[in-house]
């Protein structure tokens, strides 16, 4: 078995399980929430789901895009991104993904959380921006 086959067969398989574990934890944590107003609890939900879907998207990209003839280092660098919509766009170049607008909006929300809000409280401007995770939007959020 070639190293790349081993990588895709086993290591990406493990990564698939890791992604599923994060997604499960996110869904369960959301189920356990009694109110939607506590930033610390929402943070956990969003973090689990964001990490889980990012890793899952990367597994799919790796399986679809990787070729033995490619520059491995370059390919691995291309996976260093937190943009879920970008990863989804790469997948859609190869396969039809049966997701509706709501699902895409949800992935956008996770991307926004992970890129802009996750470390937001370490900045001074967080003093003026309450309830970041609660909406991931300036005033209110509709679902």
């Amino acid at each position, binding site marked *: 078995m070639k190293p790349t086959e081993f990588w895709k067969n086993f290591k990406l398989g493990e990564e698939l399980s890791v992604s*599923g574990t994060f997604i*499960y934890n996110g869904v369960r944590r959301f189920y*356990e929430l009694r109110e939607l107003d506590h930033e610390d609890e929402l943070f956990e939900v969003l973090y689990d789901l964001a990490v889980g879907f990012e890793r899952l998207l990367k597994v799919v990209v790796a399986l679809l895009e990787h070729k033995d003839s490619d520059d491995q280092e370059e390919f691995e660098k291309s996976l260093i991104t937190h943009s879920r919509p970008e990863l989804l766009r790469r997948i859609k170049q190869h396969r039809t*993904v049966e997701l509706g607008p709501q699902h895409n909006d949800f992935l956008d929300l996770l991307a926004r959380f992970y890129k802009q809000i996750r470390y937001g409280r370490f900045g001074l401007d967080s003093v003026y921006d309450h*309830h970041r995770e609660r909406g991931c939007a300036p005033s209110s959020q509709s679902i």
Partner: protein
Amino acid sequence: MNITFPADPFPFGTDNDDRHRKFIRRIAMKIASSLFSIVRDRAGELNLHTYELRSGSKAETVFLGEVDIPAEDTLWKELLAPKQLLPFTQNGNGDVFIVQHRPVEDEIRTLGAYIDWYLQTHPGVPAGEVLVLVNRRLIGNGIREVLNDLATQHNRAWKAESFYFEDALSAPAAAEGFALLTLLVNPEDRPALRYLLGEGRADCRRGPYARIRAHCEQTGESPREVLQLLAAGALQLRYTQPLVTRFTQIKQRLAAMAPLGVQQLVDALFPVGGGADVATVRQVASLIVPNVQTASELLGELRPDIVQPELPGTQGRSIWIMSLHKSKGLTARLVIIAGCVSTSFPQYARPHRRKFSGNWRSRDGCSMSA
């Protein structure tokens, strides 16, 4: 969902209710399953096993299961903290018999003879204090026939009654009639519509329905609305014609039934010529007909009568025969659990499957029979 969270919910906060939970779960599961299907397909093309998941893992639950958190929590509660059995000392000692039979006919005959003997040797015990629990209707009804034959032969004062009305809809003809009645009352009832659309096909027309469902998720329309648009030619969705044809047939049948009176409706839904398949539900419906005026009232009475039939009291002259789940909460002097076959009963808990917990009580004796 058209739910807007207020920017400042002070002082009451925003409750997380089941609508939110189901919505987030459905969204997450749809994304996960869509991406996982690509993993599975691509791994197959590459002759890899990347998609294989450890049995019982969280990932397996996400990609191949449903992440039904309430059901999982119930299961874990039962597994981790099984209910402690406490003796009811005021009831005195009871007898427990565990008996094995070879063919099921032996079991039926032996249990019939045993119950007859028990009631003869306990003349003060009413027949209603004998409870026979068996999940398979075939065995339950067999015991009922044997008991009633014995009662006739020996001129006993009791009789046996079985309560398997929940099986009244197990035959396709009965289920079809009930689904049509449900749609007649509520045209937007999705389970009834889905059943009728898939009826008669091993694959339940899963493929075309998945296309319609995907369209519904994007537009927010109901499956019925989409099917009506398709049938009218106002919408085009590829590979959905078999469902549209079936939907048109269902509509025609419902239109024919709409003007019928309640008795004619029962005759049309559960015809006499339907034989044993519809006999039970027809019998239950016929008892309701004199007291109702509309299809809606008929359905309102029929549904609880099938799901929760009224049981006779313990002081009555009828031996009760029913499924274990139906018996939950009941108490009897003699409880017989029949049909204990490995893998059939008891059903041991598997991940994501609820375990049966027996909440009936026996005061005198319990017999387990296999």
